[in-house]
């Protein structure tokens, strides 16, 4: 028998547990076109909904005439706010403590706002009927600039009582939403006033959009016979959607089943609750038939959650030698017509207070003023934890500006200010406790790999050659070092609509030793079905290939807060590991019984329990699983199942060091990315292949945002970038190859030491690309210029600096 036992390494490899580049189980169906996305859901008798949307950014609605639309063959219903009002569904709560119109209630506040919902036999009829709904608008003055909005007499939100507090305290003006502060302003100002060197810069992190390739949509099916509502949709947080749907509709929560099927990318766009979801539910209740709503791309870009739109003014002080002494940051945050940010309740500006970055800054202050304007609502975290992209862009630009002020090398300035390895756990001036890090090692590795000093010499030579007229291309070296704050979060300070941000995993081991595990999260491409099985394989000794992972069905999965903010691995991944350990603990008792020894006399060994000191005596997990179902074991319940709900003690703090080398054609403004090096430290690595894929993807979304992607408005509030003709998504042609690298600094408080990685490359990538562009012009006196650095803006920068002769 013993001779037949494969050796330990083979048994371990057979598990396909943590650390291996296991191929994805999802891909088998995706590569054959057999994914099941919301628009693939087709039910008998299903109707289709479509929105009448406002062409104006701010207007009063004088009347809505639905007669002609209702008269069209195939039209079943046209819903307006008047129809929803008796159900109290014409407004809905947002995730940020504000409320939002489901259908326009007397006025519209942004272009593309939902005014009426047409329900018809098919999409074509619905679209025809949308054109037949007559809405009489009276135009009102439009406010697209948040600074102007704070001065204007024009009241945007007439529904809010003047002078009354908002969800986050006093409002200073009728278009003001909140002031959120962190840190000690007085102490910070004192340090800044007395500093040897102080510099100030204002940067605009432009409005953009997550734009997943699949738009948002839902299918609602109200079964009036059994009183059950089933809702399929593009939900990054299906369980929260169920709770919200129950609270809004009055349908008891056990009678609502929410299903997130395959999701075609989320990136934050699918966290919020949208009017389309609510209208599809109401329409199904009204008509008694299933109703599908799928938005088109223009609707997606114009009306569902945007990201960023932060005006950030920073002041930073340092000694002459470059040691940073203080940081002051003020943000004017444009939230659009409704505050529909998706942030934990107590954080209306998300985790913007991570803006001291990776640096040991003794004193700091952050103040964020939220403002209403006539733009689409939102403010979601587009491929980042809550507002962390803004925070990291802010500090990484402030560092560059300070380096210019000090006439110092920006890499060296970072190095002398990094939080040191021995300072962790490190409490930052704005309150967060960083769990672990080794920034100097990562930075040194990055700079050595790219041969940083040689790059700087080459750059200096290029500048001289440019001045001599020998080249028209400048060279930029972009640096960034970021610290993310992910894995929201501890229930003591993180909740969404009152629901604590724990997450969960439930495991059932079948009698033959295979398993199913269900989680409260939902993959949108991250490969959860692959990686969570790897965690379980390592924890339980059951091969990953014998474990099914399911998510997204609220009738079967345990309650969880969903997938965004890189929280799946830090929170649900921890729950998975701990549920696996519960399985193992019970398995140990069963093994001891079967081996006729005391519990303490057996130990876990890859895929089995062995008698200590006698490894030839063992029971495999397969043996144990079978015994759990067919033997009466004294003091042990039959079966082998476990549930774990995990409330993380702290966030996790992944970090990384990025370098971009860029050549910029001064006459065309075209940047060419010569090299991009990305070192990520996400703690323990579960699947290197998937990590690398996440980094490639996040960097490409960073490239998009830094180099051209924006949601732009004209003065009348018209969206100028409503299709993929104008809204920049890089193709394979514009996208470079990336070099990936890593260090491993495990999280000390996470059961497997993992920190999360999906968003790091976006968070670190945006400042890196932007710094590369701006660094190219440093020798010619550029301090700061605003993103996105599209060809025109880069050309303009060169022109403003007099580089066109």
């Amino acid at each position, binding site marked *: 028998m013993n001779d037949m036992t494969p050796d330990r390494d083979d048994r371990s490899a057979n598990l396909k547990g943590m650390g291996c580049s296991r191929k994805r189980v999802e891909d088998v169906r995706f590569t054959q076109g057999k994914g099941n996305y919301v628009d693939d859901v087709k039910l008998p008798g299903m109707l289709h909904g479509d929105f009448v949307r406002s062409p104006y950014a701010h207007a009063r609605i004088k009347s809505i005439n639905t007669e002609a639309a209702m008269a069209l063959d195939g039209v079943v219903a046209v819903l307006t706010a008047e129809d929803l009002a008796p159900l109290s569904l014409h407004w809905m709560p947002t995730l940020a403590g504000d409320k939002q119109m489901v259908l326009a209630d007397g006025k519209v506040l942004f272009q593309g706002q939902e005014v009426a919902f047409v329900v018809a036999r098919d999409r074509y009829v619905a679209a025809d009927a949308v054109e037949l709904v007559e809405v009489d608008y009276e135009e009102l003055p439009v406010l697209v600039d948040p600074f102007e909005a704070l001065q204007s007499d024009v009241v945007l939100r007439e529904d809010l009582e003047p002078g009354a507090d908002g969800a986050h305290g006093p409002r200073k003006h009728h278009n003001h939403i909140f002031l959120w502060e962190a840190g000690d302003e007085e102490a910070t100002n004192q340090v800044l006033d007395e500093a040897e060197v102080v510099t100030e810069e204002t940067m605009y992190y432009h409005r953009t959009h997550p734009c997943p390739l699949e738009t948002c949509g839902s299918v609602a099916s109200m079964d009036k016979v059994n009183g059950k509502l089933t809702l399929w949709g593009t939900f990054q947080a299906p369980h929260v959607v169920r709770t919200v749907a129950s609270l809004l509709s009055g349908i008891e929560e056990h009678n609502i089943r929410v299903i997130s099927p395959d999701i075609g990318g989320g990136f934050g766009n699918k966290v919020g609750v949208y009017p389309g979801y609510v209208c599809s539910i109401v329409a199904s209740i009204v008509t008694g038939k299933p109703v599908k709503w799928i938005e088109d791309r223009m609707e997606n870009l114009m009306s569902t959650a945007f990201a960023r739109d932060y005006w950030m003014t920073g002041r930073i002080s340092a000694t002459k030698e470059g040691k940073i002494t203080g940081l002051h940051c003020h943000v004017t945050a444009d939230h659009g017509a409704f505050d529909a940010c998706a942030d934990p309740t107590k954080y209306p500006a998300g985790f913007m207070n991570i803006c001291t970055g990776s640096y040991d800054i003794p004193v700091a202050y952050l103040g964020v003023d939220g403002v209403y304007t006539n733009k689409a609502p939102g403010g979601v975290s587009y491929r980042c934890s809550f507002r962390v992209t803004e925070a990291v862009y802010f500090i990484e630009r402030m560092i560059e500006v300070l380096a210019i002020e000090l006439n110092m090398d920006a890499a060296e300035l970072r190095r002398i200010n990094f939080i040191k390895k021995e300072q962790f756990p490190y409490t930052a001036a704005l309150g967060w406790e960083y769990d672990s890090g080794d920034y100097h090692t990562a930075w040194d590795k990055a700079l050595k790999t790219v041969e940083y000093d040689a790059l700087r010499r080459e750059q200096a030579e290029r500048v001289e050659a440019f001045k001599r007229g020998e080249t028209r291309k400048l060279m930029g070296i972009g640096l960034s070092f970021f610290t993310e704050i992910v894995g929201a979060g501890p229930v003591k300070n993180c909740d969404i609509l009152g629901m604590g941000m724990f997450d969960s995993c439930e495991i059932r081991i079948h009698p033959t030793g295979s398993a199913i595990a269900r989680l409260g999260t939902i993959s949108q491409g991250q490969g959860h079905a692959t990686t969570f099985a790897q965690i379980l394989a390592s924890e339980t000794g059951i091969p990953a290939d014998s474990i099914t992972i399911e998510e997204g069905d609220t009738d079967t999965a345990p309650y969880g807060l969903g997938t965004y903010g890189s929280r799946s691995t830090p929170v649900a991944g921890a729950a998975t590991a701990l549920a696996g350990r519960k399985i193992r603990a019970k398995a140990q008792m069963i093994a001891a019984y079967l081996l006729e020894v005391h519990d303490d006399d057996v130990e876990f060994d890859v895929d089995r329990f062995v008698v200590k000191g006698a490894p030839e005596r063992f029971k495999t997990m397969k043996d144990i699983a079978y015994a759990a179902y067919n033997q009466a074991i004294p003091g042990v319940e039959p079966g082998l199942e476990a549930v774990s709900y995990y409330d993380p003690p702290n966030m996790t703090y992944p970090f990384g060091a990025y370098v971009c080398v860029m050549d910029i054609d001064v006459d065309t403004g075209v940047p060419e990315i010569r090299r991009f090096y990305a070192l990520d430290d996400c703690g323990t690595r579960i699947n290197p292949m998937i990590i690398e894929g996440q980094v490639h*993807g996040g960097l490409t979304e960073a490239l998009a945002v830094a180099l051209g992607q924006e949601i732009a408005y004209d003065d009348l509030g018209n969206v100028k970038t409503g299709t993929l003709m104008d809204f920049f998504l890089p193709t394979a042609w514009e996208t470079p*190859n990336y070099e990936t690298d890593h260090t491993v600094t495990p999280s000390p408080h996470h059961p497997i030491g993992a920190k999360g990685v999906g968003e790091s490359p976006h968070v670190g990538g945006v400042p890196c690309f932007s710094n590369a562009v701006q660094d190219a012009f440093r020798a010619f006196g550029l301090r700061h210029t605003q993103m996105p650095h599209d060809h025109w803006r880069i050309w303009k920068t060169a022109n403003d600096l007099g580089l066109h002769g």
Partner: protein
Amino acid sequence: MSDKMHIKLKVNGEDREFLAEPRELLIYALREHLDLTGPHVGCDTSHCGACTVTIDGKSVKSCTMFVAQANGAEITTIEGIGQPDALHVLQESFREHHGLQCGFCTPGMITRATKLLEENPDPTEEDIRFGMAGNICRCTGYQNIVKSIQVAATEMNSAKEAAE
């Protein structure tokens, strides 16, 4: 708009007939009338390529064509490329090299790649990047898609040489 046309298509080797309004887009007809939900709608404006199919030997974005225009054509969708027990080399390669994440662009991406490799069986990286530029992916950053196609091309060429 109730005047319907009699549409005949050969899809994935099968003759299919149905009634459709002339204004219906081909992607809609494929998805709604023929239940071929592999090709997806990503943008409605022929930028993203999620709806890519092969029509009479050419890569076409099926959101840009009326079903009436396709009448009589021979069409291949992702459902006609490889079978569960005999995947196409590209399907295997995309999985092997992590050339997909959310999977939404993948059917269009692989369908386009099959044509690309017919047009150019031995493409350089630049050829692939240019030849795939009509298909947008939001997840992968393309690096692994390019790799998947490169490796598939090599494998297909070796298989061809071995057969000759």
